[in-house]
């Protein structure tokens, strides 16, 4: 239904969005590791400290199937609908679009009228996605000014190229493949944009065939996983530039462009360096004088030596636990970058006010392949999994973490089986952070949490066309 005034959760700028009220609910993708007889679900967690149910799972919508491998779901509409060139501000932020990377299914869930009891309104089968877009294994959803953008890891038969397709934000009909000209791009993982510069950035992981059985050591050691970023003309849908990070850099994942549309830089996490198993964060930036895009490595996080007895078979030969940076997130004021080290088991907070010179401002240990650090709510009990998906509230004062990554990887790095948890971190007004000792949601056996979306928006759901 069209509203009379813009949806109150739409903000012209990131600055105005950071004044938004605190979220009272969080939506969490809950997925079955493979087909275990259970069904995938969308969980609803109460995040209102004044509520009796604070820090509890208060709702759960079961999807028709299990084993979808739900990944980065998103809203049908967000602040980008205030953009002047494609204004559509009276649509509601209401539906969540949940893609299944394994099944290629796309689920559309209505969070109204009762946000605690979301309802399934549509399922697009993977065969239809493939027929209408040429893509399979959809992964990430972003609400764009002119529709919903979804990317996919590959195409028919599980090979590449992976790419982007569009879904109409009102009818939820597939609009087809996005790219007009893809140049050398073949691998896909994440995508986002600089709306003020009409530029899209995409990253590289691997095709469905390269990733669906987990990290393939042969492909990895041969450097076959993705090592590049791609820059696109968002308006003309054409490839502009490939930015190679180096042959030893493997698996270039989460993209976090600056939220201020005047800024033309962002950060991306690389899972592994073949040289020393370190993870790294790179900055991409537009060089005004050459007109070209460039990259700089701005953070490197080393692997930690470990007793092979504490390591899963895949890592025993290396006698080290890699940090496995698999998600990063940038606060709406572009000041703090949060980095999830899923392997070593710590969340890092960097001040990136000067994006070329990040400073480490805080580290919080939890879980981890070797450390198994407990949560303060239950200090005696080791936790497995590590901080993985990280989501930041719009005001930047709260950060939510979940611990499951991707079923085939979960099995390789946490072979004892991940027990799902979600934790909340409180952030000081000028940085620093600590766990909220009251908030640890533990999910039932056989249902693992992944992406979190906060009601009304969060630091990775919305994009803005205005700087002020």
């Amino acid at each position: 239904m069209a509203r009379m005034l813009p949806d109150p959760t739409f903000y012209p700028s990131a600055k105005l969005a950071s004044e938004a009220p605190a979220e009272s609910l969080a939506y969490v993708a809950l997925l079955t590791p493979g087909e275990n007889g259970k069904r995938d679900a969308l969980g609803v967690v109460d995040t209102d400290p004044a509520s009796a149910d604070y820090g509890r799972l208060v709702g759960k919508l079961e999807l028709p199937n299990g084993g979808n491998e739900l990944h980065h779901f998103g809203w049908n509409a967000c602040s980008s609908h205030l953009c002047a060139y494609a204004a559509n501000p009276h649509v509601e932020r209401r539906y969540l679009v949940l893609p299944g990377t394994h099944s290629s299914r796309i689920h559309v869930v209505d969070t109204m009228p009762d946000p605690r009891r979301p309802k399934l309104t549509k399922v697009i089968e993977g065969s239809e996605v493939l027929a209408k877009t040429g893509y399979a294994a959809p992964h990430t959803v972003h609400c764009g000014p002119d529709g919903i953008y979804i990317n996919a890891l590959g195409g028919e038969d599980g090979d590449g190229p992976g790419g982007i397709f569009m879904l109409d934000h009102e009818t939820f009909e597939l609009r087809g493949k996005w790219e007009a000209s893809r140049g050398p791009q073949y691998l896909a993982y994440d995508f986002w944009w600089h709306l003020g510069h009409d530029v899209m950035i995409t990253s590289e992981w691997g095709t469905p065939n390269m990733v669906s059985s987990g990290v393939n050591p042969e492909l990895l050691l041969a450097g076959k996983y993705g090592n590049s970023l791609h820059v696109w003309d968002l308006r003309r849908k054409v490839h502009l530039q490939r930015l190679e990070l180096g042959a030893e850099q493997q698996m270039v994942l989460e993209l976090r462009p600056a939220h201020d549309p005047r800024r033309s830089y962002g950060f991306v996490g690389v899972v592994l360096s073949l040289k020393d198993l370190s993870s790294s964060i790179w900055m991409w930036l537009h060089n005004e004088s050459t007109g070209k895009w460039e990259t700089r490595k701005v953070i490197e996080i080393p692997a930690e030596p470990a007793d092979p007895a504490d390591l899963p078979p895949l890592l025993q030969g290396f006698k080290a636990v890699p940090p496995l940076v698999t998600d990063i997130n940038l606060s709406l004021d572009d000041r703090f970058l949060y980095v999830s080290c899923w392997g070593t088991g710590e969340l890092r907070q960097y001040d990136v006010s000067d994006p070329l010179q990040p400073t480490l401002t805080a580290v919080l240990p939890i879980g981890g392949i070797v450390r198994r650090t407990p949560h303060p709510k239950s200090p005696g009990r080791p936790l497995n999994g590590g901080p993985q998906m990280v989501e930041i509230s719009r005001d930047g004062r709260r950060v939510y973490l979940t611990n499951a990554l991707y079923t085939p990887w979960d099995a390789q790095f946490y072979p004892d089986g991940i027990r799902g948890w979600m934790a909340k971190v409180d952030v000081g007004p000028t940085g620093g952070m600590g766990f909220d000792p009251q908030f640890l949601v533990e999910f039932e056996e056989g249902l693992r949490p992944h992406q979190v979306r906060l009601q009304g928006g969060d630091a990775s759901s919305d994009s803005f066309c205005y700087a002020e």
Partner: protein
Amino acid sequence: MANHSFPWLSLLALGAAHGINPAMGWLFAVARGLQRRDRRELWRALGPLAVGHAVAIAVAVAAALALGEVLPVRWLRWVVAATLVAVGVAGLTRHRHVSLGGMRVGARELATWSFLVASVHGAGLMVLPFVLGRGAATPAGLRHHHDAAVMIAGAAHFDSLGVTAPLIHTLGYLAVTATIAVVVYEKVGLRILRRAWINVNVLWAASLIAAGVLTALL
């Protein structure tokens, strides 16, 4: 042409009404100013926005004029009425999108955007009842004569209206677009969008339908 019956006030008001709508241009001008931190970018956007808007109106009037060459005015009236109602009904059922997909567009693309936005909203169509009313009002005394005579008399009036109507309409549009853009950029800020961006789609669609019905009846 009798000046007292020329609908210039209505045309000005209609243009002004379009100018108020953030989706019709002023917000785009503000966005470009803010992006570059340069108020001159805002001013530079106004010309292309006005040109695109004027062309949209002129195209609609010219199309009616061309149809007037081959159709009796009475029939033309029905065609315009039916189109107004159709666009109005379509606007009620589905919000139309115009997107050039980005913000960094050149002057020509900005004008094209303005043309498309005005056209899909039926801005030019809305002017036609005034033009038709004027075009058909003068030869009213000839109504009992042969259709061809009506056509020729009507066409002569369309000619002058075909130029002046888009200009006057665009003047209203430009004055309001420029004023709001400057006030929002310099003083008010975009926070106002959250409270003041009223959904005029339904109202506008209803106006189109009403105009269509009136055109058919009068």
